């Protein structure tokens, strides 16, 4: 074995190099001071922006149970969605008029998670005429419709694809889209005079339109409490447009038993109440008659 030591001696950094490194360090730390601050500021702004997006995107219509999130621009539509858009009509002109939609540019505008139902995803695609098509409402290919809304009833279906109204898992939705720029919320008015409000999620250019989704609570399926009309309002509560068609569709659907029954359900409780009251009256009358007969027979 060699007697050579393993560890090399302690050596100083040559003076010229030390001086150069010291100057470099000083230049860097004085140069980097504002950069560090800048980076922190950028980070803080990014966090604020993210927070703002998260606060702005939820739609409050489903009693805060829905979360809407914009999807990334890089998301490419699957073939099923492309095919859906290719087959969409224009929404104007004779049936079959091509919409001019660009399926390859379809994007997820919002995704809603509905408890007890699942997720509701809205795909939108721009058209060549400056409009758009969506998987909820259809096409507004030339931006001719200011406010469109529709009804969707979903839930377990029978073999012929009809909803099963008696099922407790049936969900009723109102879906809408508007091109009215100041639209901030959609308002649903009911037969009893009350109203409910849902935030409109605005999708930027090239779509440049607002969308909303509202689940109609079961309390408003009953006669006397059903929806009357939908409207879109600006930030100051000024009404911009009104549409009563979806509310009418709902009432028609109830009459045709596609939607959950209203009359039957609403009558059920009073009928039981009447029967119970009648039974109580009969029992009381029987008790009185029995007491009179006992007294008449001379017993104490």
């Amino acid at each position, binding site marked *: *074995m060699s007697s*050579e*030591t*393993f*560890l*090399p*001696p*302690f*050596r*100083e*950094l*040559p*003076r*010229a*190099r*030390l*001086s*150069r*490194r*010291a*100057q*470099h*360090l*000083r*230049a*860097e*730390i*004085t140069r*980097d*001071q504002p950069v*560090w601050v800048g980076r922190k500021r950028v980070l803080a702004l990014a966090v604020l922006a993210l927070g703002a997006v998260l606060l702005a995107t939820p739609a409050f219509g489903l009693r805060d149970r829905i979360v809407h999130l914009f999807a990334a621009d890089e998301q490419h539509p699957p073939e099923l969605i492309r095919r859906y858009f290719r087959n969409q009509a224009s929404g104007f002109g004779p049936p079959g008029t091509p919409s001019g939609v660009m399926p390859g540019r379809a994007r997820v505008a919002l995704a809603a998670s509905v408890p007890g139902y699942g997720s509701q995803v809205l795909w939108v695609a721009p058209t060549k005429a400056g409009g758009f098509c969506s998987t909820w409402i259809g096409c507004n290919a030339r931006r001719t419709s200011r406010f469109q809304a529709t009804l969707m009833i979903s839930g377990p279906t029978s073999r012929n694809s009809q909803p099963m109204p008696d099922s407790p898992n049936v969900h009723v939705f109102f879906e809408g889209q508007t091109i009215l720029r100041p639209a901030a919320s959609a308002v649903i008015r009911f037969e009893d005079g009350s109203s409910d409000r849902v935030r409109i999620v605005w999708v930027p250019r090239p779509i440049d339109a607002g969308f909303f989704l509202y689940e109609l609570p079961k309390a408003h399926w009953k006669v006397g409490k059903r929806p009357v009309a939908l409207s879109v309002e600006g930030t100051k509560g000024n009404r911009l447009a009104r549409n009563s068609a979806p509310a009418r569709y709902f009432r028609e659907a109830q009459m045709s038993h596609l939607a959950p029954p209203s009359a039957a359900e609403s009558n059920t409780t009073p009928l039981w109440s009447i029967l119970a009251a009648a039974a109580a009256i009969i029992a009381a009358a029987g008790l009185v008659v029995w007491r009179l007969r006992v007294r008449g027979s001379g017993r104490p």
Partner: protein
Amino acid sequence: MSPERTREARTLASVVLRWNPGSAVGHEREEMELDDSVLWARSASGDADAFTLLFTRHADEIYNYCFRRIGEWSVAEDALSIVFLEAWRRRGKELPPGKVLPWLYGTATNVVRNRRRSERRYRAALSRVPAPPSEPDIGEEVVARLDDERRITRALDLLVKLPRDQQDVFVLCAWTQLSYEDAAFALDIPVGTVRSRLSRARAFLEELDPAGRHEQGETPSTEGALER
């Protein structure tokens, strides 16, 4: 510190004095004797001159430590810059009196351990290091440094057989002569852990190298570490 280093420090101290308008010229001696903790506190408040003085004061220790962990003088020089840039970035950290150098060793340990990440983070800064001036080619110095690298490579070959946490403790205590308390502070571990890791490392290395060369150096003080 060598006389040249003292002159360097004096120059920088005078810069510190000029930078602080409240300081009187007659206080230069006081400035010269500023403790590391004072310099660190000034650095924390953004005093670049105080930090540069701290760099000049401890550059050689960190430079040699980095070399003993990396095995190349040129890379160790870059690592030295990274250690101090990282220290500047974390200058808000409160350090107990007398613990600036141990903390710098701890920072150097992390820099060496995460060398690629550190180099990536400070790549732009390192690219701005001015080109070396035309230095006189001292053949003996070059040969000596090459010999250093050959020797440290053999030592590192032995060292890497230890678990990483034992490597850190061994290099700090046995090769760098840091006290157990300072090594514990540098690595942010209890003193007892330092003792046990060092003991295990020594036992392991004794088996591999019974001659004990893994702790030998040319500085006499190295023996102190062996006796602890």
